[in-house]
C-alpha cells in the first residue's frame, strides 16, 4: 500500500480561554491519496478551516494542536519548528484562500511574486524561474501569460486573480494543495471555471487536494471523497456518491436535503431545526442529538461511535442505512 500524501491521525486542536478550553477540532482522522480531492464540508463553526490551518501550522495563538498527528507523505509535520514549517509551506503544500487580494502582494508584479517563490523553493536559475512562472500562468488559463508577467494584482479581475493565486500555490510543484473556500467570493460563472481548473490540475499533476467549503454543490462536482464535519468532529466520510446520494449520518442527510438545489419544485425546503451549538456549550453525547430527528436515549449520553471501515464511516449510533433494515 502506498503512503497517503496527507494523513491526519486523531488530530485535536484546543483553544484555552478564561471560560475553559474550547475544542474546535476533536479527534479527526482521515487521509488523502495522490491525485485525490477530499472535500471538507460543514457549516460555520464546524472546524473545517481550523483543520486546514492546523495542517499548515497557521493556527492563531492561543489555538494549538493538543493531540494527534499530521503526516505529510509519512513524515510527521505537526511538531516541526517554525522555520522548517515555512520551508514546507509553499514547497510541499500549496495554499489558496478565499480572498485572492489578501494572498497577493499589491506592490509587486505577479511575475516577481511567482519567480521569487520559485527561486525560494527550487534550485533553478533566474531565467528558468521566469520560464516556469510563465508556464504556470499559462497552465491556469491566463491569456497571453508572457505579457501579463509585469502586471500588478489590481489589474486583474477577481477570477483572474484567483487563477494567479492558484498559479502561485502550484509554482513550486507541491504534492498537496489546501484550498479554503477558494470560490466563495466569486460569481457563479467564474466559480465553475475555478473548480474545473482545480479538478484538471489535480488530475494532471497527481496532486492531492483538500478542498474546504460550505457549498455542497461545489463539493458534489469537484471532490472524489467528502468529509462532513459537525461541531469540530467528523460526522461522516466517504466517496462523494455515497455522501451526496445515500448519506448515513442524519446530519449529512439533513444538510443535503436543505440545499435548495435538492428540493427544486417542492413547496417547502426540508430544514434541520436549531443551529450548530457553540463550542463552549456542546451537548453531552452526540453533538448533533438535540437537532436529530432520530435521536434515541443512547445518543444523549454516548458520543457517536466510528462505524465502518477506515475511509468510509459515519459517526452515528443509528446510521440511516441500518435504520431502514430495522424498519
Amino acid at each position, binding site marked *: 500500500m502506498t503512503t497517503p500524501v496527507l494523513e491526519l491521525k486523531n488530530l485535536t486542536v484546543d483553544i484555552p480561554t*478564561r471560560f475553559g478550553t474550547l475544542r474546535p477540532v476533536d479527534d479527526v482522522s482521515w487521509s488523502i491519496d495522490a491525485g485525490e480531492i477530499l472535500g471538507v464540508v460543514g457549516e460555520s463553526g464546524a472546524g473545517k478551516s481550523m483543520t486546514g490551518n492546523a495542517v499548515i501550522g497557521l493556527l492563531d495563538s492561543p489555538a494549538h494542536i493538543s493531540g494527534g498527528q499530521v503526516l505529510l507523505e509519512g513524515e510527521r509535520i505537526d511538531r516541526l519548528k517554525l522555520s522548517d514549517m515555512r520551508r514546507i509551506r509553499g514547497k510541499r503544500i500549496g495554499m489558496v484562500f478565499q480572498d485572492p487580494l489578501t494572498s497577493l502582494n499589491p506592490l509587486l508584479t505577479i511575475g516577481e511574486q511567482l519567480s521569487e517563490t520559485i527561486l525560494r523553493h527550487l534550485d533553478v536559475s533566474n531565467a528558468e524561474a521566469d520560464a516556469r512562472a510563465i508556464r504556470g500562468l499559462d497552465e491556469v488559463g491566463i491569456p497571453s501569460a508572457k505579457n501579463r508577467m509585469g502586471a500588478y494584482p489590481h489589474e486583474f479581475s477577481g477570477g483572474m486573480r484567483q487563477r494567479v493565486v492558484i498559479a502561485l500555490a502550484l509554482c513550486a510543484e507541491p504534492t498537496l494543495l489546501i484550498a479554503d473556500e477558494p470560490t466563495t467570493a466569486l460569481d457563479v460563472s467564474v466559480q465553475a471555471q475555478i473548480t474545473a481548473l482545480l479538478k484538471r490540475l489535480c488530475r494532471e499533476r497527481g496532486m492531492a487536494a483538500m478542498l474546504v467549503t460550505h457549498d455542497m454543490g461545489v463539493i458534489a462536482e469537484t471532490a472524489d471523497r467528502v468529509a462532513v464535519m459537525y461541531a469540530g468532529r467528523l460526522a461522516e466520510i466517504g466517496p462523494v456518491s455515497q455522501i451526496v446520494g*445515500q*448519506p448515513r449520518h442524519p446530519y449529512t*442527510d*439533513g444538510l*443535503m*436535503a436543505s440545499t435548495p438545489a435538492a428540493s427544486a419544485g417542492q413547496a*417547502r*425546503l*426540508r*430544514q434541520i*431545526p*436549531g*443551529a450548530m*451549538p*457553540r463550542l463552549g*456549550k456542546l451537548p453531552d453525547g452526540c453533538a448533533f442529538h*438535540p*437537532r436529530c*430527528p*432520530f435521536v434515541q436515549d443512547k445518543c444523549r449520553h454516548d458520543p457517536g461511535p466510528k462505524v465502518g471501515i477506515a475511509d468510509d464511516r459515519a459517526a452515528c449510533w443509528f446510521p*440511516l*442505512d441500518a*435504520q*431502514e433494515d430495522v*424498519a
Partner: protein
Amino acid sequence: MSDLPDAARQGPKPTGRLEEAEVVAPSRWKTIWDADISYSFRQSPVAMGAAFVTLVMVLAAVFAPLVATTNPFDPSSLNLMNGFSAPGVPNAFTGETFFLGTDDQGRDVWSTILYGLRISLFVGAMAVAFAMILGITLGLLAGYLGGWTETIIMRVADVQLTFPSILVALLIFGVARGVIPIEYRDQMAIWVLIIAIGLSDWVQFARVVRGATLVEKNKEYVQAARLIGRKPGAIMLRHILPNVLSPVLVIATISLALAIIAEATLSFLGVGAPPTQPSLGTLIRIGQDFLFSGEWWILFFPACTLLALALSVNLLGDWLRDALNPRLR
C-alpha cells in the same frame, strides 16, 4: 433520500426553542464581571494601579474641605509666622508642624494641593466635556451629512490642527481677556480657561467621530432606519451616536490628562487660574520662585501630584484603548 419520519420531512414550523436553550440570562452583576473589558481590567496591574491613584485623587479633591487641615484661602486661618515651614519640622516661631511644609504666606502645602487638585480636575473635566460635545456634534454632522457641511467643518479642523493647541488656547485666552471687563476677570478666569482648552481640543473628537460615522452610516441598520422615514437628526442621535462612543471614550480619557497638563501650563505661564483660586499649575509657578532659595517643598509636592495625576489618567487611557481594540485582544 432515505425514509424519514413525517415530522422531519415536512420540517415543523420553526419554533426556535432549541436555540434558546443556549442563552441563559445571567444576573446583571455577573454580566458586568464577565464582560471582556472588566476581565482585561483585572488582568492588568497597571490599569488597576492607575485607576486606584486616579480614584484616590478624585476623592481627595471632592472631599478636600474634609481632608485638608486648613482652608488655605481663608485669610483668617493663616498665620504669616508659619511661612516657610519645612515638611515635618516644627516651626521655629509657632511650634506648629506641617507634614508637607508651608509656603511663603504660611499656607499649608498639603491643603493647597488638595484645593489645587480640585481646580485642576474641574477645569480638565469641564474642558474635555466641552470639547467632546462640540467635537461629537460637528463630527456627526460632517460624517452623516457630507458635502459642503463636511468640507467646511473638516477644513476648519485641519487649519486648527496646524497650530499647537497651547497656542490656540493662549490666543483664545488673550481675546477673552480683552473682551471681559476687568472687574470680572478673576471670576471668569476659570471659565475662560475651560473654553480655551476645550476649543483647542475638539478637533480630534470631530475627526474620530466623523470617521466612525462614515463607517456606521453605510451599515444596514442605518439604511433600515432611513427606510421607515426616520429624520436625519433622529438617526444621528439614536442610531449612530451610541455606536461611535467607544473610541470617543478612549480619546476623552487621554484628553483629560492632556487638558490637565494644558491647564497647568497656562497657569504656569501666568494666564490661567488666578492666585486667589490656584490650580496645581499656579502652585508650581509660585513654588518655582523659592526653588533656589532652598524651600524646595513648595514646588516639589504640587509637581509630584500633577505628575502622578497626569500619568495615571494617561495609563488608564492607554489601557482602555487596547482593551476596546478588538484587533489587539
